[in-house]
């Protein structure tokens, strides 16, 4: 297997005395959909930040077969999309939903070129595909949490990345909206030729097309493999240090607790 699109070897991140990531290794092939799951403070977001180039680290990180540090050129950044946790936006902030989506195109345009008709059309196309064209002229800060997350997703897609990193994109959303966003993510994974990394601590709310899980605890990988194998009561109880059981229903595995 030399075709990993993301490859980590001995990735370690320290903040002061704390070891946030302890010699993590990971290989992700093209078009995979990987869930990074673990309790709070396990290092999930840090791992994502390392791949996104937001965080300094030691160890070896390869993207598209090339070694990268946390500083990287524009071309590499463009190929790695990022969807953050729900972003707080001041209700009065002067940006419309469509303008926010269009910001996904500006890295590709480069300096001194403004978005033109082509970018506007692509923006509307993506917004229609995500069934949110009616929000185009609404101020971003006045959208609901779910709508704002869809904007984040749309702007990341407009960037046309090869890898899409998502940091708890459904946190703080209510259940129906979580489901909608998750379905949208699965839909995108099927349609676009994308490698997805999805950070979450909520194992009952996973996108249907996620097939591999990496379980993290205290900065270490404790499991890496098929998502169904990861979802065993024993493994999860150990990970979350809380008695958990799993049961199957309608072909899906769920986790329950007292």
């Amino acid at each position, binding site marked *: 297997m030399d075709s990993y699109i993301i490859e980590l070897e001995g990735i370690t991140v320290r903040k002061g005395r704390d070891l946030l990531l302890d010699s993590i290794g990971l290989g992700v092939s093209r078009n995979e959909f990987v869930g990074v799951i673990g309790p709070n403070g396990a290092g999930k977001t840090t791992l994502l930040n390392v791949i996104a180039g937001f965080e300094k680290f030691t160890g070896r990180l390869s993207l598209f077969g090339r070694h990268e540090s946390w500083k990287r050129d524009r071309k590499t950044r463009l190929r790695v999309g990022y969807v953050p946790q729900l972003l707080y936006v001041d209700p009065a902030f002067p940006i419309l939903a469509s303008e926010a989506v269009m910001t996904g195109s500006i890295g*590709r345009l480069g300096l001194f070129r403004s978005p033109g008709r082509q970018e506007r059309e692509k923006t509307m196309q993506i917004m229609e595909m995500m069934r949110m064209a009616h929000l185009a002229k609404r101020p971003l800060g006045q959208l609901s949490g779910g709508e704002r997350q869809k904007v984040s997703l749309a702007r990341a897609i407009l960037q046309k990345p090869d890898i899409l990193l998502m940091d708890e994109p459904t946190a703080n959303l209510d259940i129906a909206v979580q489901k909608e966003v998750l379905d949208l993510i699965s839909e995108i994974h099927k349609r676009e030729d994308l490698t997805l990394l999805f950070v979450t601590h909520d194992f009952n709310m996973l996108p249907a097309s996620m097939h591999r899980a990496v379980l993290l605890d205290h900065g270490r990988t404790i499991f890496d493999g098929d998502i169904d194998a990861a979802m065993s009561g024993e493994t999860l109880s150990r990970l979350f240090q809380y008695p958990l059981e799993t049961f199957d229903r309608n072909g899906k595995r769920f986790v329950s607790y007292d």
Partner: protein
Amino acid sequence: MTEHLVDVIGYQPIQQAILACVLCGVSCSLLSVFVVLMKMPLIGVSMSHAAFAGAVLGMLLGVNPVLSGFIMCLLAAGVLGPLSDRTDMAPENVLGIMFSFLMGLAFLGMGILTRTKANALNLMWGSLLSLSGVDIAMLTFVTLLLALFVLFFFKEIRLVLLSRRLARASGVPERIIYYSLLFLTGAVVSSNLTTVGGLLIFALLVQPGATALQLTYNLKHFFIISAASGVGACLLGLIVSYVLDLPSGAAVVLMATAIFAAAYIFSPKRNAARPKNMERIS
């Protein structure tokens, strides 16, 4: 009265004051867009104290105080960005620490400075009516630089204002944009010490942006409204201070506040964004 005003406009020092007014209004209010949208109101106070400390230091060392104030501002800007990025401290906290440190430095200098205290104090108030050619030239240069920066990097600025992290993920050189903004803040504040002075510049770095925040969701219009209200406050303030023989800086700031109050009261955004159940209750 109006005839008298028209006569007055013919005088060269008055023309110069009007030009300074426009430049001061444009530079401060363009910058206030960033100050307000990035929620860093303390940056104005902090920078003006850096400039003030620099100026006092300059007087002690026998260097041109405007120049040393300018250099001190750029130094402060150069420290602020990396410090807040590296220490994971909120920029506002870094500003708070820098602000008190620079104030201490300025007052220390004032204590040592025995002969020319009055000169230093002038930089606290500024004066639109007694500017030198060099002051005007520097102000023009800095204003132009800021306007060009906004014009050329508009789309990058929009994303950096929304989220620096998203900007970085999109391949935008957000650090360069952000640090340039800090440097421009230093440049604008220090070149306006002679116009509205170190104390009152704070008002002009917040009020025009806050005014625009009441009125538009369009970032382009935001810059234009902010600039218009800033220039308006400066010019109206100058006229009022001339006619009623009041201190010009005070008149300008009070005028800016009045414009903000009017925008707040008539804000279509605020009125539209009011939650519906609130209306039902009241």
